[in-house]
């Protein structure tokens, strides 16, 4: 336990001193703040600068647009930020050899994986929570409606998708070597899941639902049961990814 805490603290120090904390926190917070603003201001701007020959009937934006913007930003840019920032989580230490000293002191390999997952999770969780709160505050201020249906669940599921991406990155890094192998494999898996999500029947089992069905929860287009079962599948996948990462990492030649 002491080793776990020590190594997790080392991860935090690394995040802070290599500016990962700053990047993830600020970028996610910016998404949170700008999403409702964009939803509100884009139509106003279009009204202000009418395009010749184009007479768009712009509907008045609603609270839904604010959240739609937020979920869209988070699932696209948010995922990219996560992938880029946490790509080196394990691969960089393996390619540079910085883990050798730690492992030669008796640090169990499972602790390495669990510490890294914990530290990355906490950064993601905190940043995402602050961002979602900022988004909520701005959305309520601009559009009213402080109690959209299932908003918490919609946010929670997207958070869970982020957790899966972190676990997947760790597992992928133990499967393929190189600085970007894990990133490519993770990207590949996500693309595959995205392709599968074209089939509507896959929704209750596909983790992608956690990032695509959020607005549906608010509007009622996504069945709660579908989202709940996708969440369960994702939790199982996270556990499997971590277990796989530990098993593979134990057999990794260093």
């Amino acid at each position, binding site marked *: 336990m002491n080793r776990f805490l020590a190594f997790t603290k080392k991860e935090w120090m690394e995040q802070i001193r*290599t500016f990962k904390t700053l*990047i993830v926190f*600020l*970028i996610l917070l*910016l998404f949170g*703040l700008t999403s409702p*603003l964009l939803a509100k*201001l884009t139509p106003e*701007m279009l009204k202000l600068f009418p395009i010749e020959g184009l007479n768009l009937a712009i509907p008045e934006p609603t609270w839904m647009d604010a959240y739609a913007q937020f979920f869209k930003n988070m699932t696209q840019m948010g995922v990219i930020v996560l992938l880029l920032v946490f790509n080196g989580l394990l691969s960089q230490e393996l390619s540079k050899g910085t883990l050798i000293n730690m492992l030669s002191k008796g640090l169990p390999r499972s602790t390495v994986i669990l510490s890294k997952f914990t530290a990355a999770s906490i950064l993601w969780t905190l940043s995402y929570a602050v961002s979602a709160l900022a988004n909520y505050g701005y959305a309520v*201020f601009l559009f009213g409606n402080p109690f959209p249906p299932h908003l918490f669940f919609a946010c929670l599921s997207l958070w869970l998708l982020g957790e899966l991406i972190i676990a997947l990155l760790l597992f992928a890094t133990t499967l393929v070597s190189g600085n970007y192998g894990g990133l490519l494999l993770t990207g590949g898996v996500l693309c595959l899941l995205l392709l599968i999500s074209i089939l509507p029947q896959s929704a209750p089992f596909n983790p992608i639902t956690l990032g695509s069905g959020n607005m549906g929860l608010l509007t009622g287009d996504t069945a709660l049961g579908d989202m709940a079962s996708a969440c369960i599948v994702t939790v199982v996948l996270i556990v499997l990814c971590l277990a796989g990462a530990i098993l593979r990492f134990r057999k990794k030649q260093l």
Partner: protein
Amino acid sequence: MENLMQYIPLLIPVIALEFILMVTALVHVLRHPQYRFGNRVFWVIVVLFVQIIGPVVYFVAGRGEQ
């Protein structure tokens, strides 16, 4: 126009965050003259003129290790 003016206070935190990101990156670019690629002038321009993405790209890809 007046319609838009009322949103200025809401924009201030956004601008402040972008500014923090930019300044942190700029200070780092100037104080650590080694980069994985590119040179100082290149990174100063990227950080100053490419909003948000510029500093992120610098910290993720351009920042030298040594």
